[in-house]
């Protein structure tokens, strides 16, 4: 039996997808269109993408050129460093090909205007103040149906001038569902229009293959530390190539 479920929680976030009971067959509709977004949501998301492209003239660099296409038809968890409040909108815009759902701090949904706009986009609220299982369940639904996620595993902006430690929760989905983690390094200061182009370096996927006798949480820690090391190295590469943009004092 397949349950068609529309998820509109208290934050009215824009996730409409077909959920199937464990062990049930995937129906045609689920295979065809696993993650749906309202028409207005799609239009608004497109508007945001155009605005991001106009304002920040993003430069998207792939570590391996084949990645651009290879990532398109598979579920993955993009993880990136977090330097600015724009990162969510920027990441969602430049990775538009993969339609990732961005994990957004729940407190943003409580802001009257911004919260409303976030709710139209492909975003999932996450409560960082307490153990939150709601985001995990939603993210599982998305990944099981072929969707992708964009997570900032630092859990906040690097305010003290250095990249913070990546939290393992971000890799839990990857560990449990054998979905690869794609490390991304965001580089730049979001200088609008004529300033330095905002860059993103998309790394090679880190495949997830949790051994059968290992707990997902333990494997998630291993995965996230690999991803963190990759993001730091990739950021360093960008800094060497384009010069230090002074986002971090050290990285």
């Amino acid at each position, binding site marked *: 039996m397949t349950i068609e479920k529309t998820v509109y929680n208290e934050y009215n976030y824009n996730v409409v997808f077909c959920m199937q009971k464990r062990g049930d067959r995937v129906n045609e509709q689920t295979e065809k269109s696993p993650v749906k977004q309202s028409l207005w949501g799609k239009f608004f998301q497109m508007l945001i993408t155009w605005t991001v492209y106009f304002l920040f003239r993003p430069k998207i660099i792939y570590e391996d050129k084949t990645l651009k296409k290879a990532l398109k038809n598979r579920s993955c968890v993009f993880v990136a460093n977090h330097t600015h409040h724009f990162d969510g909108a920027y990441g969602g815009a430049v990775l538009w090909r993969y339609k990732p759902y961005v994990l957004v701090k729940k407190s943003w949904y409580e802001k009257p205007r911004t919260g409303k706009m976030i709710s139209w986009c492909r975003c999932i609220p996450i*409560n960082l103040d*307490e*153990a*939150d*299982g*709601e985001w*995990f*369940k939603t993210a*599982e639904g998305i990944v099981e149906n072929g969707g992708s996620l964009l997570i900032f595993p630092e859990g906040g902006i690097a305010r003290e001038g250095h990249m913070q430690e990546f939290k*393992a*929760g971000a890799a*839990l989905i990857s560990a*449990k569902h054998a979905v690869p983690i794609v490390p991304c390094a965001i580089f730049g200061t979001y200088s609008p229009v004529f300033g330095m182009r905002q860059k993103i370096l998309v790394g090679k996927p880190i495949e997830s293959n949790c051994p*059968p*006798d*290992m*707990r*997902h*949480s333990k494997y*998630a*820690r291993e995965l996230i530390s690999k991803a963190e090391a990759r993001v730091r190295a990739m950021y360093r590469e960008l800094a060497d190539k384009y010069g230090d943009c002074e986002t971090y004092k050290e990285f």
Partner: protein
Amino acid sequence: MNTEICEKIKKMLVENLRIPEDELEYTSELFGDDIGLDSIDSIEIIAGIDSLFGVQMTGAARENFQSIETLAKYVEEHQGE
């Protein structure tokens, strides 16, 4: 204690968190020395309980996660809310 709920939770813990079934008693301390789970595992527990019983445990006090028994008690008290 509702044995049916306990059994479902135990099954979920064995399947989702890969805890060996023979190590897991209804009274085993999940986050203590017995099983040794950590905060990341609690995310899976919360998601599992929600899927199984439709009970949301986000923000529930830490003591509710102590054992299968306490989890079952929480589920029993909050089911149908």
